[in-house]
C-alpha cells in the first residue's frame, strides 16, 4: 500500500510475559519487530500479536491516549503504549512490562478492579448544593470556577500514577493519586455542596500532589499512615502468587492466578526516585542546623566559658565547611519546597485562569530570596547603627 510507511528497520522488544497456565512466574521474551518511524509501542505489540505470537495479551482501544487502556512500563517508566513512539526509543532494545505495583493477570494485563472500586468508594458524583430541576436549566459556572477543578476532571484513569507511586507500591490499600484527584475534582466543583467526606482509606483530602498524572509526586498528607497494616504483613504477600480464592464446591478452579511482583526494596535509590529521596533529606539538613543552634543554646546556658568554646569551634574551618554544605542543602530545600508546594495546594485561580505551578515556584523562590536578603540587610543595618 502506498500509504503505509515501509517497516524497513528492526527493533528489539523485551516483553515480560506471564501465562498462569504454564508460568510459575513472569519471564521475559524477546521479539524482533520491523518498524517505521511513525510507529508506536502499541503498534509494535500489535505487530507481534498479528504476525508473530497471537498469545500476547494486552489492553488497548482508542490509540489516541484518551481511553486509558494501554498503560504499561516502557523502559522502566509508566507510559501509554499508544503515545510512546519507537523512534524515540530506537535503536536500543525496548523493555516492556506490565504496570508496576499491580498484580499481573496475564502478560501486560494487570488487575484493575481494585482501582475502580477505589474510584467508586469516594462517591464520585455531584451532590448538589440545592435541588435543581432540568427545567430550571444548567447551573451557572464561570470559566474561573471551572478552572478550579478542570484539570482534575481530565483524568483518563490510566493508572500510570499508581505505577509511579511507591507509597501505593508499599501499601495497596492506599487509595492512591487517581482516586484523590477525582475527590479533588468534586470537592472543587462549584456546583458541589460543602466538603466531601470519603471512606477511611483516604485520610484527609489535603490537596492532591498530582502533576500531569504521570510524574512522581509525594502526597504530603496521609501516605505516612499507609503503614496501617504493618510492613511485615504486606511483605508476606510479595513475590508470590496471589492464589485465587478457593472455588466453591462442585466448580472447577478457573485458570486465573494473578501474580504480584515484590516492590524493589531499594526503589528510593533508583531513578527517578533518588531525586525525591535527596530532596527529603534536605529536611534533615534543616534539622541539623537546628541542632547546631541547640548546641549553642546549651552552651549559653552553661555560661560564658562554655559559650566562648562554642564560638571558637564555630569560627573554625570545619564549621565553615559544615555550614556551607548545610547552606547548599537548605537552598536546595528552598527550591524544591516551592516546586512541591503548588502541587499540594488547591489550584490558585487568578483572573479566571489557573496560575501555572511553575510561576508559583518562581514567585516562591523569589520571595524566599527576598526574605533572606531582608533579614541579612536588617541585621547588618542594626550592626551599623550600633
Amino acid at each position, binding site marked *: 500500500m502506498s500509504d503505509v510507511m515501509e517497516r524497513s528497520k528492526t527493533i528489539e522488544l523485551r516483553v515480560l510475559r506471564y501465562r498462569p497456565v504454564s508460568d510459575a512466574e513472569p519471564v521475559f521474551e524477546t521479539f524482533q519487530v520491523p518498524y517505521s518511524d*511513525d510507529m508506536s509501542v502499541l503498534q509494535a505489540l500489535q505487530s507481534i500479536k498479528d504476525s508473530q505470537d497471537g498469545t500476547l495479551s494486552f489492553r488497548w*482501544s482508542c490509540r489516541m491516549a484518551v*481511553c486509558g*487502556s494501554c498503560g504499561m512500563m516502557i523502559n522502566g517508566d509508566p507510559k501509554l503504549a499508544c503515545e510512546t513512539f519507537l523512534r524515540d526509543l530506537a535503536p536500543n532494545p525496548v523493555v516492556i512490562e506490565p504496570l508496576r505495583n499491580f498484580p499481573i*493477570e496475564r502478560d501486560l494485563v494487570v488487575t484493575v478492579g481494585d482501582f475502580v472500586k477505589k474510584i467508586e468508594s469516594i462517591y464520585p458524583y455531584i451532590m448538589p448544593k440545592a435541588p435543581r430541576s432540568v427545567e430550571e436549566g*444548567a447551573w451557572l459556572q*464561570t470559566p474561573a470556577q471551572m478552572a478550579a477543578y478542570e484539570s482534575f476532571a481530565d483524568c483518563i484513569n490510566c493508572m500510570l500514577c499508581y505505577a509511579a507511586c511507591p507509597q501505593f507500591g508499599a501499601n495497596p490499600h492506599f487509595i492512591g493519586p487517581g482516586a484523590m484527584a477525582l475527590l479533588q475534582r468534586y470537592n472543587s466543583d462549584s456546583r458541589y455542596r460543602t466538603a466531601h467526606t470519603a471512606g477511611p482509606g483516604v485520610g484527609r483530602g489535603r490537596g492532591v500532589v498530582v502533576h500531569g498524572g504521570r510524574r512522581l509526586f509525594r502526597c504530603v498528607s496521609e501516605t505516612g499512615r499507609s503503614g496501617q497494616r504493618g510492613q511485615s504483613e504486606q511483605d508476606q504477600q510479595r513475590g508470590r502468587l496471589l492464589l485465587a480464592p478457593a472455588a466453591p464446591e462442585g466448580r472447577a478452579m478457573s485458570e*486465573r492466578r494473578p501474580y504480584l511482583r515484590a516492590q524493589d526494596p531499594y526503589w528510593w535509590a533508583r531513578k527517578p526516585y533518588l531525586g525525591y529521596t535527596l530532596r527529603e533529606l534536605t529536611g534533615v539538613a534543616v534539622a541539623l542546623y537546628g541542632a547546631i543552634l541547640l548546641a549553642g543554646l546549651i552552651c549559653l546556658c552553661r555560661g560564658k566559658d562554655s559559650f566562648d568554646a562554642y564560638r571558637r569551634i564555630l569560627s573554625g574551618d570545619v564549621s565553615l565547611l559544615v555550614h556551607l554544605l548545610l547552606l547548599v542543602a537548605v537552598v536546595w530545600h528552598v527550591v524544591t519546597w516551592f516546586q512541591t508546594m503548588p502541587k499540594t495546594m488547591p489550584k490558585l485561580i487568578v483572573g479566571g485562569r489557573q496560575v501555572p505551578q511553575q510561576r508559583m515556584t518562581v514567585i516562591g523562590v523569589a520571595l524566599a530570596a527576598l526574605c533572606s536578603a531582608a533579614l541579612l540587610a536588617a541585621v547588618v543595618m542594626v550592626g551599623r547603627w550600633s
Partner: protein
Amino acid sequence: MEHFDADILILGAGGAGLRAAIAAAESAPDLTIALVSKVYPMRSHTVAAEGGSAGVVRDDDSLEAHFHDTVAGGDWLCEQDVVDYFVAHCTPEMVQLEHWGCPWSRKPDGHINVRAFGGMKIERTWFAADRSGFHILHTLFQTSTKFPSITRFDEYFCVDLLADDGRAQGAVVLSMSTGEFTAIHARAVVIATGGAGRVFRQNTNGGIVTGDGMALAYRHGVPLRDMEFVQYHPTCMPGTGILFTEACRGEGALLLNKDNYRYLQDYGLGPAEPEPRNKFMELGPRDRLSQAFWHEQQKGRTVTTPQGEAVWLDMRHLGEAKIKERLPLIRDLAMQFMGIDPAIAPVPVRPAVHYTMGGILVDIDTASPMPGLFAAGECSSVGIHGANRLGSNSLAELSVFGRVAGEQAATFARGTDASRRSTRADEAADKALALLHQKGEGERHATMRAEMAASMEKGCGIYRLGPEMEQTRDTMADLKLRHAAITLDDKSRAWNTDWVSAIELGFQLDVAEAMAHAALARTESRGAHQRIDGYEQRDDVNFLRHSLAHYQEGAGPAISFAPVKITRSPPGQRAYGAQGEQLEAAQKDAAHV
C-alpha cells in the same frame, strides 16, 4: 456455567448504555440491572468523541431549524417523527448531564457556550473543550455508581444473545479474566454496543468498535437498517486515522490543497470567506467534504505524506492561545503523534471511516422487532441520521435514546413474567469454545482482518462502483468461510484476547457483508452512499426507502426495503454554501407568498 438473574440486561457501557442504566435505575429502582461491558466503562469509545453534542439554546435558534438541518443533512432518509422527538429532547438531556457534573465549556458569564458545527445553520453544539465525549462518558460512569440496583460486569464479553422463542431472554457472557461463561437471564435486553467502523482499514475507531451487538441481533433475526451508509470523517490523521474534530473547523480552521487553495469552493460549498460561516465551506456536512477530498485526490491536488495523500488543516490563524483553550487535545495529538504544532504549521488530514449510520432496526421507543430487545446509540438505527449524520447529533443521541431505552426496557420488564431460564446458554458457550479449539487450516485471523478491512475500503469507500462492491461482497463471503477454518495461537482461557478477537472478527464479517449487500442494492447516490457507475443521482422515486438486511444462515443477507416516514419536510435539494442560502431564501419567499 454461572447464572445471574436480572430484570434488565444492558450490553455495552458507553454513553448510551450508561444512560440507559441510569434511566432504568431512576425510573424503576426496584428492578435489578445487569450492565455488561467488554471493557471497563471509561474505556468505551464514547471517550474518544471530541467535538460536542447538539442542543438548541440560542434565542435565534429553534427546534425547527435543528430538525431541518438534521433531515437535510440525512438527505431525507430520516424518520421525521423520530427527528422531531430527538431535537425536542436534546437540550434537556444536555442540561441533565450538566447537573450530573459534565464540565461544559462556558461563556464568561457562566452560561453554556455553543459552537458552530458542520451542516448546522445556527450554533448549537455544546462542548467540553475538545473532549466532549470523554467528559460525557466519565460523567455518566461516575453518576452511575450512585445506583445500587446496577450490577456491573466489567470486562465481560458477550458471545451470544439468549432469544428462545423469538423473545429476548438475556445473554451468555465470557469473563475476560477467567475465560469462564455466565448466563445472564433478563426480562428485557438493551443493546448499546456501538458501531462497526473497524471493518474498514482507515478509521477513527478504537479497537473495540467491532459491531458485536449489531451482529448478535442480526443473527437472531433482527434486520439491520441502512447499513450502506458509513460516514467518512474528512479530517483524520493519515496512517492511524485518529480523529481531528470538526470543532477545529467550527473554530475557524481551513482546508487547503497542495496549492494552498481552499478547494471546497469548487464543490458547491463556497464562496470562500475569511470567517467561518455555518453550512459554508469547511462547515459543510461531512459526506460532502470527504467527497471533495476524493475529487482532489483524483485531480492530483492533494499533498503527499509518508502515510499517504492528505490535505492541509490550517489552524495557524487561530493563534496558540485559542488552540490551547478550545482545542487542547487536537494540539496534543498533532504534536505528539506528528511532531507538528498547529499554531505554527498546518496539519495533514484525510478522510477515514468514523461512524456507522445504519444499525439495529428500532422504532421511536428504541424497540426492535424482537420483543424485549431494545437498542440505542451507534449500534442502532433509530432514524435520526438517515444517509449522513451531522456532527454533534451522535453524542446527543446517546443521551436522548439511551434514556428512552432504559425507561422502555424497565416498562417492558415490569410487564413481563420473570423469564423462564433459557436452555440455550450451553449452546452459545459451546460454539465459542469450538472456535477456541478449532483445528483449522492454520490461517491466522489477523490476515483475514486486514483483508476484510482493505476490501471494505476499496469497495465501500467514499465513491462506489458496482463491480468493486460485488468484489467486496464476494470477499466477505469467502472470508466467512475461511473464518470457520482459522486456528488460534492461544488456547488458554484466562485473558485470551486471541480468542476474543477471533469471535469479534466473526461479528465484523457479518456486519461487513450486510454493508456490502446493502450498498449494491441501493442503485442511487444519497448522502454518504455515492456511486460513480451510472447511479450518480439521488432517486427519490425508487429509493426514498430504507434498506433492511436480513440474516440468512450460510448465505449473504436478503435485502428488502421499507418506506421513510416523511411528516413535514419533503425531500428537497441538499444545498450548502451560497447555493444553500439562495435556496433557503427562495423557500422563505415561497412561504410568504
